């Protein structure tokens, strides 16, 4: 099995605050991993560090992506190599057409891979197909990026972008938060659609409920910046039943 992501002894923080304290994680192609943990345990930090957010400083350790040193790359280079981050709070970019951004993103990646740019007709056809499966009105293509979108619409838009960009590694940061049950099912269907032997997916989530629809191969529990428990999907159910205190106690015992 091919290793997509290999995080070793990662220490990282923001400003003077240290958040990750020696985190190890290996994700192979074709696998779906869920990372769970209480607020402040470092879940989002891990996602942001992998994507290359400038506010986070890596203090020690390494992150390798398909064997390459990911930390050496600019955020846009990571993206073009196939790292996708589904944001917890997708930002609004008024005035920039959603389709325009999406097409620019697809073509930036295609150029990087030495492929011809996709033309407008092909792009629209593809985008409409993907939108149909996500239950999105094509009108969203012509709106400003996330401009005036509801929480659920923003999350669907993230999944649409993921579907169009076909990443090698998708990290979805609390994609389930703020979704009603119907939206959750649609988003989950979108994620399942992308499950593929060549693709690794990391779901960052607080709750079990997303995992009812997207079944993970592995579940990790993050606490104080380290993975303290790993297991299969039954671990998520245990957590749901016993709460995070149970993990902390188990670790401290």
């Amino acid at each position: 099995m091919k290793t997509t992501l290999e995080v070793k002894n990662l220490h990282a923080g923001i400003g003077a605050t240290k958040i990750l304290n020696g985190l190890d994680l290996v994700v192979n192609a074709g696998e779906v991993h869920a990372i769970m943990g209480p607020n402040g345990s470092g879940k989002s930090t891990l996602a942001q560090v992998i994507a290359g957010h400038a506010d986070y400083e890596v203090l020690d350790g390494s992150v390798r992506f398909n064997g390459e040193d990911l930390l050496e790359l600019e955020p846009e280079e990571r993206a073009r190599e196939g790292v996708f981050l589904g944001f917890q709070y997708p930002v609004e970019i008024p005035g920039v057409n959603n389709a325009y951004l999406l097409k620019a993103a697809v073509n930036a990646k295609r150029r990087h891979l030495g492929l011809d740019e996709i033309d407008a007709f092909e792009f629209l056809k593809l985008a409409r197909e993907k939108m149909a499966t996500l239950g999105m009105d094509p009108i969203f293509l012509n709106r400003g990026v996330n401009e005036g979108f509801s929480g659920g619409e923003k999350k669907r838009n993230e999944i649409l972008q993921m579907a169009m960009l076909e990443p090698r590694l998708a990290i979805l940061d609390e994609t389930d938060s703020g979704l009603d049950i119907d939206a959750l099912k649609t988003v989950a269907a979108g994620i399942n659609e992308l499950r593929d032997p060549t693709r690794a997916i990391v779901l960052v989530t607080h709750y079990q409920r997303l995992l009812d629809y997207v079944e993970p191969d592995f579940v990790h529990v993050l606490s104080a910046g380290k993975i303290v428990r790993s297991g299969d999907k039954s671990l998520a159910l245990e957590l749901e039943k016993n709460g995070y205190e149970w993990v902390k106690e188990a670790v401290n015992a």
Partner: protein
Amino acid sequence: MSTDPNKLDSLVNRRYEHGFVTDIETETFPPGLDEDVVRAISARKNEPPFMLEWRLKAYRHWLTMKEPEWAHLHYPRINYQDISYFAAPKSDKDRPQSLDEVDPKLLETYEKLGIPLHERARLAGVAVDAVFDSVSVATTFKGKLNDAGVIFCPFSEAVIEHPELIKKYLGSVVPYRDNYFAALNSAVFSDGSFVYIPKGVRCPMELSTYFRINAANTGQFERTLIIAEEGSHVSYLEGCTAPMRDENQLHAAVVELVALKDAEIKYSTVQNWYPGDENGKGGIYNFVTKRGDCRGANSKISWTQVETGSAITWKYPSCILRGDNSVGEFYSVAVTNNMQQADTGTKMIHIGRNTSSTIVSKGISAGRAQQSYRGLVRVMPQATGARNHTQCDSLLIGKECGAHTFPYMEIKNPTAKIEHEATTSKISADQLFYCRQRGISEEDAVNMIVNGFCKEVFKELPMEFAVEAQALLNVSLEGAVG
């Protein structure tokens, strides 16, 4: 792994591309201004007596005026006696009839500016009246325009060839008494463009002039007059870049537009005067009076401007909506970066019945730049059924710049419908990271956001100009995000 602030700095501090000086010998008056200088300018241009009289009246009036201080602009006092008021290329006496006869050095300059004049003119089918320093040196496409009865020539030529039109219309929209800089321009204007579109004629091509400033310490005072007779139509494009300079250069132009019954004038500008260095040293002081008079019923005047240059910009292209059902439009994108300052906007004066005006102003500030929108909507008592829609948006890049809005409304007729919308937004680090996470470079992301912000204005520009304007904006703001 993240944005390197040094790299951004170096991009912000990129040198102005068009900064160089050609060494074509210029015949330049010594610095200073008095009646003799005004007489000498007029004599150099072989002007008829009425023109000299008008210049002198303007000069004497200017002496009684004070430089305005109300604008939100800060710059050292201009010493008007330190400026030279005339410069002409030597080849003036034998004005070339074709590009072959043009001084090759001059053509080389255009090449350096990225404007291969002959190529562009030929390929785009645009008539070009190129103003280099103060005297026009190349005029093309005259034949085609002649056939249509359109007059498009240097202003100095029109003074001699069409004195009746000049007498009738010069100063009829912007009187020499209008303001300090208009008075100065009226006294010492060097040259500019004259356009006359006869009754019922649709000008067969878009008219374009490229202005350049190219002699040290020489203020350039252009004068442009466009007259659209009944039922005629013209689109005029003006664009400029200027060489780098250490001293501040004063630029005080006047543009007058007259639209008679059912006539339409579309005036588009891309302004890229040298903005000064990152500390605000050098750069053009641009004090411009642009005004259009919708004199006849159902006439329309539309201003579209993309302002990226100048150290100081003081400019309010305006419309006087005198004719019933006349329409005035103002679409503006103004970019200020580093230490640039701009106080710009428009005036819409509603006089006729059922007149309407639209104002769309997009201001972008970066670096330590300060930008103000200043707009007046005045509805006169007799102007029943007047309508105005104003949209005024500001975009801030970085933390040290400023945007200010000064809307004035004087509504003296109760039937008026006036709408004003204003927004201020910022390009945030989160927006840029979001784009980069999708594989789009930071520069492309800034361009995307800025162009998205400006698209309402760009769509008003003629096609080839829109592309140029977009490119210019990208260059002006390159690396402005830190």
